[in-house]
């Protein structure tokens, strides 16, 4: 059985600077989304108990071949990568179409894992859209996964309640950021990652017409204006006076 983890290459948001309210991407390296790493760790743990083969799937520009090494070092056995310059900053429906087409090239997929949202856009749509494209059942916002043969028992964590669910494989799952603590790969694992098999797929090899898929227009994307007072407070007494002046203390 193959367990597939889909991950997204994103700019390292900690290194994105804002200039004139615009994000500056120049010189910012790519990385994997934080919650993608939780999905990957969940995949590695399931692989360890089931003996499955763990495949990481991603789509992006040529940098993705380098970015994906992190996932291979963390325990994925091989990578399926769709590489094309057009595959950056995609809207969710297009990401989903590309990923679903790539995943169709993989046989015997038992579990398909996603993070609950990407690190940059965080729309949370892609896992649901891929599940629909592949005609598979899905469970999102998962905090626990137990695999027993072809049956999977999942805990979905909602805002105020939890559901324990059972399903037959294959199944699409999106995991929460607190499902696990992703392991840090060892130096040996990092060195081995470069030698793990990578299946590079050209966009032309997938039967998709990207031009017809665009459904969203972004009219603007600006950092919020900062109109805070930024008054320096030096002592607790000053702070309490400020809170009193604002009406937060003694307002009964």
């Amino acid at each position, binding site marked *: 059985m193959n367990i597939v983890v889909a991950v997204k290459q994103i700019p390292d948001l900690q290194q994105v600077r804002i200039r004139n309210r615009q994000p500056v991407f120049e010189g910012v390296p790519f990385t994997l989304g934080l919650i993608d790493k939780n999905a990957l760790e969940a995949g590695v743990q399931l692989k360890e108990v089931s003996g499955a083969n763990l495949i990481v799937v991603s789509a992006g520009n040529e940098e993705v071949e380098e970015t994906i090494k992190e996932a291979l070092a963390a325990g994925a056995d091989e990578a399926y990568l769709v590489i094309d310059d057009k595959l950056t900053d995609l809207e969710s429906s297009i990401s989903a179409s590309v990923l679903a087409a790539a995943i169709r090239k993989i046989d015997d997929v038992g579990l398909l894992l996603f993070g609950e949202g990407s690190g*940059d856009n965080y729309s949370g749509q892609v896992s649901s859209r891929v599940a629909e494209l592949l005609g598979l059942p899905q469970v999102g916002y998962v905090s626990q996964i137990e695999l027993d043969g072809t049956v999977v028992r999942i805990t979905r964590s909602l805002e105020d309640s939890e559901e324990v*669910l059972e399903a037959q494989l294959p199944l699409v799952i999106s995991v929460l*950021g607190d499902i696990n603590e992703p392991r840090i790969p060892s130096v040996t694992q990092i060195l081995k990652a470069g030698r793990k098999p990578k299946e590079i797929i050209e966009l032309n090899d997938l039967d998709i017409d990207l031009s017809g898929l665009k459904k969203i227009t972004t009219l603007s994307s600006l950092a919020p204006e900062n109109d805070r007072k930024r008054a320096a407070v030096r002592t607790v007494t000053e702070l309490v006076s400020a809170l009193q002046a604002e009406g937060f203390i003694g307002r009964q």
Partner: protein
Amino acid sequence: MAIMIYSEKNGLALEMLTAARLIAANIGTDINALCINNDIQAEELAAAGVRTYSIMNNAINLADTASVAGALQNAAGQLDASIVLLASNRRGKELAGRLAQKLDAGCLTDVNGLQVINGKVQCTRNTLGGATIATQQIDSGRQVIALAPRSFAAAALQERGIVQELGIESGPSPIKLIASRNKAGDVVDIEAADILVIVGQGMEKADVVLAEGIASKLGGELACSKPVATDKKWLGEDRIVGLSGKKCKPQLAIILGVSGQVQFTVGIRDAHTIVAINNDENAYILQMADYAMVADLKEILPELNEVLR
């Protein structure tokens, strides 16, 4: 052409009704609310003045996103809905992607504001992990828009709408619900609090109790940055403020020992007044505060806790 609204949470459905009325007032279209296997909600929505379609079919499995999406797709067809409004809570977000794919619709989630310009619904939402706020519109004929909780006021009661049954077929579900339980004990609604005291990694565990004391003396709630809950496990995940936690708009936020990465600030930047206390004068959080204090929390917290009554 019509607007269809659905959320399994009635409070959120009423917020969506407000958004739907805003859209309808501009493009002149009908609004239909949908309820699945919940006749109490159907009555409550109708009381808010919206035509409500009640689907009663136990084959529709609410825990199975594909099953619910299938029912909504069918309903959207019967009601000629071109705009579907959902809630951007976890259930609603999961549903949004699946329904959008079924309807071949463009979809935006976590939408926290909208306006209609020249007949187009323009949505605002956070992007780049919250570093920027994007204004986006859906160009496809069908649109699925998931609205972030508390972005719109709940709809006021209006002249009673009618409740009508809507027949929807549904096949067997491959997802079996074994158990459902409310989250234990410490469930707190930090989004509802007027005052939040928010703790970060820049303080010690022993001082959290002081922060809690300050929160309670001000009549507020204690909240935290993500690592405080997920890594240090000092507080429950329902108290997390930020991109993957709650987006809060309190009157007052007192932020203690949080450096202010955007994944955090996105959850609190709509607060009316922000107080930040940090021992690092370069912490970004001080720049987005109305009152900024550079100080050692170990010294300040006992004093503040003592002064407040």
